[in-house]
């Protein structure tokens, strides 16, 4: 998260660093829609230091999804979120993945989430160095 960019600029940042992506009105509309879905639609013009840690995490998630990637890598994406936000973000992640026919690869300690994934690998079985 770049502290000198607003939430909106942070979300749209992938368009700045990827020449293949075109920053047009569709991108802006998608950024606003994602922010609204994450509950931070009214804070798009704020800078990260004026947002809570959870709000910053939601911006990071919006930034990951705004380019409609075919593969979404998620490492404890909901770790800093309250239960309501966590549910909302997870729903958003799954929605986006489905809409873009993308794969969602997530790392989590939250066992409640496991039933929602097509395939689960429990790394606990590798603790001794040999898979069970």
């Amino acid at each position, binding site marked *: *998260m*770049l*502290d*000198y*960019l607003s939430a909106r*600029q942070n979300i749209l940042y992938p368009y*700045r*660093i990827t020449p293949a992506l075109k920053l047009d009105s569709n991108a802006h509309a998608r950024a606003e829609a994602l922010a609204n879905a994450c509950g931070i639609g009214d804070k798009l013009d704020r*800078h990260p230091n004026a947002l809570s840690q959870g709000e910053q995490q939601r911006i990071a998630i919006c930034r990951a999804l705004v380019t409609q990637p075919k593969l979404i890598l998620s490492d404890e994406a909901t770790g800093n979120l309250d239960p309501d936000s966590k549910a909302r973000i997870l729903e958003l992640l799954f929605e986006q993945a489905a809409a873009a026919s993308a794969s969602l690869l997530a790392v989590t300690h939250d066992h409640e989430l496991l039933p929602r994934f097509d395939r689960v690998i429990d790394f606990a079985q590798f603790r001794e160095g040999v898979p069970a």
Partner: protein
Amino acid sequence: MNALYLAFAYLRYHWGRSLVLVLVAALILFVPAATQVLLSTSERVLLSRGAATPLLLGSRGSQLDLTMSALYFSEERPDPVAMREVEDIWDGGLAVPIPVHTAFSSGGFRIVGTTLDYFDFRRLKLSEGRGLSLLGDAVIGADVAKAMGRGVGDALVSSPENLFDLDGVYPLEMPIVGVLAPTNSPDDQAVFVDIKTAWVIQGIGHGHEDAVTAAEVADGTAALSSAAVLQYQRITPDNIQSFHFHGNQDDFPASAVIVVPNDTRAATILKGRYLETGKPTQLIEPGAVVQSLVDRIFRIKTLLDVVTGIKLWRPSRPSVWWCS
């Protein structure tokens, strides 16, 4: 494009920090540039003054001190040279000697006791008033007039040479009779007096106040004059005739003598006469002394430039920018 976008976003958000960084960077660039300009200007001024003074006679010792004292009226106090040296050069007929006496000051400006030849030699012009004609007269440089806010008709007082010199002479009040036009040289910051006036300040020459009789004091027609209440001496039309000098004028001191030879041959002959190391005096070429000083300054500057260049090109540790 992305770099510019980030740079402008950073500048806009962290404007205070960026301003400090820009100022520091500007300072880093400005200091060497300003030093370069300053040194070039100093070099030009130093060399032109040195080159314009063909020869300088003074006591043996530091040539630099002698040059700085006689040409730039610095604080250096080389051993005095006797006025008989001036007479010797006059008698030789090879050059015009111009004594300069720079031992005293007034209000932070050096008092330069000299002869009228100095004004012709330096081509000094008056912007106001007249030149030196009477004992005690002072002609001040343009910067002195500006700094002290004084002009023709005002007066200035010589500063005591040494506060702890209890038997020293009183300071001398000198009327300002002329102000020099600016020359952009050390002459602008000097107070010029006749060399005899400098000797009066030094205590070699002095005047006498008329004595007051006891009867005049008793009947109230005169007040008792006492040296105990006289804060400084003043040369007036009434007492100028009483001023006189004790001793042989050939022994009177000058800080240095500017020697203006008639031609190159005369200069060579004169230099040969002062080659003998046993003599108490030396004849130097101020231009060469100043050139040597400038060369040394530029050697140091070159060294500093090299050190600065190494430091700028090889910072002590690599900078790592981390964005999260």
